[in-house]
């Protein structure tokens, strides 16, 4: 069926009317990149707690979300290279040992809007990221229960969402080593509550430290497989050049690689870019995370990078989860200031001055920068 055939003119008018209705149920006012399906960015002013509240957590949907899943009717299929294929109910999943993992989820394209030249895709700023406490059974326990073969190299995960017209289905593959990691879970809860529909009810894969697209929502099938899925969302989607390209040049398909662990990154959440502040005590704040590593250090400059000061970091220091940071600053003079932040992780990676341009605008992690005007009180 073609996209054009999917809707009558009347339905198209209704859809357009829906575009003008911009409240997203369960969400505070968010930066609205797309409301059908929902692509919502968290304004930086909401990033004032270690756990991002669900009502402020960013949303990235590739295709329309499925109709709300009835928890009583829900079944998770576990198949492929397994000795005992399973159909698990939500109650079965709740009976398995439950792990709780604090993990930051960041959209692969977070910060895309900062790249020059511009690249297609949602023009995310700083806020396609959030940190939540996820709870549910370990993937390793589910696969053991199904008797997954030790020769299966990948775990394939499918969500209940399906593409419009011939838009590809959202299916992702994960190397078995990462799938079996004790922190990789099928989350049933987000910050202690059942995962809301918009974030993947009733079950969402959580792949700590990897790009957000790995964490498939509305999971209905886990398959042990010999090879990675070859669909659009594995190739060419969500791939990154093995060798850096001159900005503005096309990708070389044979040299694109699947994105795995995320880079080291800090962002400034206060003061906001181009804001005006009264001369006096000012707190510079932000968050920093480093994929599978932990954040070791965040430095801040308030003079464009001449001098750097160590920021205070929040506890705990964990892999997978961000740390909040702040620096108390008291400028002696009014005027315009350029504030920078730079993170270093536990493996020694340092946030670069220049992010690596790539045709899909993934993995923006340049030193963050805001400009503020300090005025006499």
């Amino acid at each position, binding site marked *: 069926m073609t996209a054009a055939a999917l809707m009558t003119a009347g339905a198209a008018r209704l*859809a357009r009317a829906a575009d003008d209705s911009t409240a997203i149920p369960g969400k505070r006012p968010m930066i609205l990149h797309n*409301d059908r399906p929902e692509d919502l960015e968290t304004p930086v002013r909401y990033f004032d707690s270690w756990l991002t509240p669900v009502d402020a957590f960013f949303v990235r949907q590739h295709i329309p979300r499925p109709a709300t899943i009835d928890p009583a009717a829900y079944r998770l299929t576990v198949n492929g290279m397994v000795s005992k294929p399973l159909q698990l109910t939500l109650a079965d999943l709740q009976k398995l040992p439950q792990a709780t993992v604090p993990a930051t989820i960041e959209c692969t394209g977070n910060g895309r809007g900062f790249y020059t030249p511009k690249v297609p895709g949602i023009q995310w700023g700083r806020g396609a990221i959030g940190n939540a406490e996820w709870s549910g059974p370990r993937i390793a326990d589910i696969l053991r229960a199904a008797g997954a073969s030790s020769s299966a190299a990948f775990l394939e995960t499918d969500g209940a969402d399906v593409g419009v017209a011939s838009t590809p289905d959202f299916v992702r593959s994960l190397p078995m080593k990462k799938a079996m990691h004790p922190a990789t879970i099928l989350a049933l809860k987000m910050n202690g509550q059942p995962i809301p529909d918009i974030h993947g009810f009733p079950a969402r894969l959580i792949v700590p430290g990897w790009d957000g697209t790995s964490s498939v929502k509305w999971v209905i099938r886990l398959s042990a497989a010999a090879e990675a899925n070859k669909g659009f969302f594995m190739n060419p989607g969500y791939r990154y050049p093995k060798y850096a390209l001159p900005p503005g040049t096309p990708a070389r398909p044979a040299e694109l690689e699947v994105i795995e662990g995320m880079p080291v990154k800090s962002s400034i959440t206060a003061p906001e870019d181009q804001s005006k502040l009264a001369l006096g005590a000012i707190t510079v704040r932000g968050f920093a995370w480093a994929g599978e590593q932990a954040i070791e250090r965040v430095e801040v400059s308030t003079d464009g990078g001449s001098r750097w000061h160590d920021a205070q970091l929040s506890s705990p220091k964990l892999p997978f989860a961000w740390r909040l940071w702040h620096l108390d600053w008291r400028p002696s003079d009014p005027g315009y200031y350029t504030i920078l932040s730079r993170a270093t992780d536990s493996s020694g990676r340092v946030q670069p001055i220049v992010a690596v341009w790539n045709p899909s605008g993934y993995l923006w992690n340049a030193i963050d920068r805001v400009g503020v005007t300090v005025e006499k009180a």
Partner: protein
Amino acid sequence: MMTGRLLWLAGVAAGAALCADPAVVARGQKEEARSCIPCHSLRLIHSQRLSKAAWNKELDKMAGWGTVITDRDALLEYLVANFGDDKAPPPPAMSQDGVKK
């Protein structure tokens, strides 16, 4: 009316290829409403600023995913005229409060 037509012709002469034909652009906007809205909101398009080559590639991608675009040239002209990479990015749009009190 004649004056308007002459002014428009003068604009075409002065702006050469930079100045898109308003009638074509208007047709392109209709084509956008017909072929894009069934699958996603227009915000996804209107928030981007891309070169003609990049918009062209996006149309190829959408056609590959099942969209039937009948007035393709007009749609491309419309996208470049309104959302070209020479245009300033739009200010961020905010959703309304959806948290039930």
